[in-house]
């Protein structure tokens, strides 16, 4: 959890808004450090977290969270964290000789064109199951997904991913008053400007998710090139209803450290001042 990001977003583990859909995206950069922030933040806030991890193994997230002061194994044992390790679960489907039957959540690998209804059903059942658990003092449910571009690479269509994110928003944000955080990595290809709608890749998915989300954090590398002291810039766009109707947009520079990340206004890096 990064304290500076909390103050920028005006939230704290004791006080944050619910019913939010946060979209983390990057283009030729890596926004996964923000996902670790939100994972640590919601676990500290005592929320019921469901993490759909398609990009890395559990030990990776555990190691990174350890450095940020959060123990994922303990949270998993307590039942606060439900972790879907996509890489592990998909082995039984991808390897026909494997006798184990993996989680039904990854069934979309058998037929990627059919959509992500099974994945959604896993998410909603794990969230409902933990709501009914004996420990009733938990906070609102939270879903984290890392990351949606993996689904595109596995053959799932952009429309199917948008349907999945719509249903997650309906079930978790609207009905259960929880939050959803999804990471999308764009590959930075120049899409054909003449016919943007026919581009079936991450750019169209990014546009679709931007319409659905309430807060968008877009990470890019600096347009001027590599810098040792500034690792990139984050554009924050708050799409919630603002007085006057305009969306609030802010840009920050950031630097990722061993045990966290610091955020500062453009031009105020400690190396410069």
């Amino acid at each position, binding site marked *: 959890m990064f304290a500076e990001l909390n103050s920028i977003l005006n939230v704290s583990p004791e006080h944050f808004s619910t019913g939010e859909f946060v979209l983390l995206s990057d283009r030729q950069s890596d926004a996964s450090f923000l996902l670790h922030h939100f994972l640590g933040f919601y676990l500290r806030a005592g929320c019921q977290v469901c993490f759909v991890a398609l990009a890395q193994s559990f030990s990776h997230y555990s190691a990174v969270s350890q450095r940020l002061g959060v123990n994922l194994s303990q949270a998993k044992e307590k039942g606060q964290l439900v972790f879907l390790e996509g890489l592990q679960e998909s082995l039984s489907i991808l390897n026909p000789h494997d006798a184990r039957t993996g989680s039904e959540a990854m069934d979309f690998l058998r037929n990627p064109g059919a959509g992500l209804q099974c994945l959604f059903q896993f998410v*909603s059942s794990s969230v409902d199951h933990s709501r009914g658990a004996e420990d009733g003092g938990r906070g609102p449910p939270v879903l984290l997904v890392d990351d949606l571009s993996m689904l595109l690479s596995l053959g799932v269509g952009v429309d199917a991913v948008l349907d999945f994110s719509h249903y997650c928003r309906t079930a978790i944000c609207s009905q259960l008053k929880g939050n959803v955080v999804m990471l999308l990595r764009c590959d930075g290809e120049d899409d054909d400007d*003449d016919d943007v*709608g026919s581009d079936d890749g991450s750019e169209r998915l990014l546009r679709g998710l931007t319409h659905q989300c309430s807060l968008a954090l877009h990470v890019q590398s600096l347009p001027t090139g590599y810098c040792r002291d500034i690792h990139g810039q984050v554009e924050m766009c708050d799409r919630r209803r603002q007085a006057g109707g305009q969306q609030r947009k802010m840009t920050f520079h950031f630097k990722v450290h061993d045990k966290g990340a610091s955020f500062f206004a453009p031009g105020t890096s400690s190396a410069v001042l």
Partner: protein
Amino acid sequence: MLISFSICSTMLHDLLQGTDTGGLFIIQDSGSCSGRRLLWSFIKAALNRTEAVHVLSFEVSEDELKDGLKGSPIERLHFHNAYSDPLAWTGSATFTVDQFCVEKVTKLIKQTSQVKTAILAIDSLSWILRHISPSAVCKTLQQLKNGGCVANVIGLLHSDMHSRGTVGSLCHLATSLITVKAVLRGDQAMITKRLKSGKVLQGEEVFTIKDDLTVIGQGKPSRSEPQEQMCISNMADPTANLTFNLRLSESQREAKEKLALPFVFSKEKKAALLHTGSGRIVYEPDANDDYDQEDPDDDLDV
């Protein structure tokens, strides 16, 4: 609280009054500027005119819509929930996207309201277009527009989600098209209105929407808006106050303009280089040259 509008009645305000019937209004927006609040302003204006409003909502929940329309008379608002389960995944579907055809929509409207001057607001058309072909959507919209069960249809379209052909087909059906984009002073609306006589009116206006969904016109967009961001107004003359002379006198300026640049290919140079017509190429083979055209490799010692 009395809010004073600008004296000339703007196209946007005319559309909000909604005096015509049999119309299809399309609000086009993009990721950087949402048109949803403008759609809500239209809904509120219709409710204030004591018309019934049916909202077919795929993208916002009932709570969010009613929260946005706070302070408006919502007794005449009929919310049709296509947000919770539009694809029948959870078994709680009240309206699925497959049911978007003129018969089912008409049945839905007639079930809840028998009033003739009803408005149908669709949020959003983009959601439907992701599942139903554009031609079917256009057909349904055309039938609804002319069908008579509703007076007007208003739809929100995210133009950056579809190909130009799809967006173009839908906008062609619209009797009024409003495209919103964000500018410094507020939002800019580009309005195209097709009258029944065949005349097409176009206009551009900048507006803002207050918390109570009142639309305040900010006048015409200023042409120099893009330059405002560059901030080069009132730049001082850089050749003043120097210890050396950077200016040119008249004769110096003339001489400079007359000068032919060395690598520019002008007409005079072209004429000098080309000898048109009077040239002839004479070839006299040397002793070492092999002039035998049939066997070019004859001189090789292989």
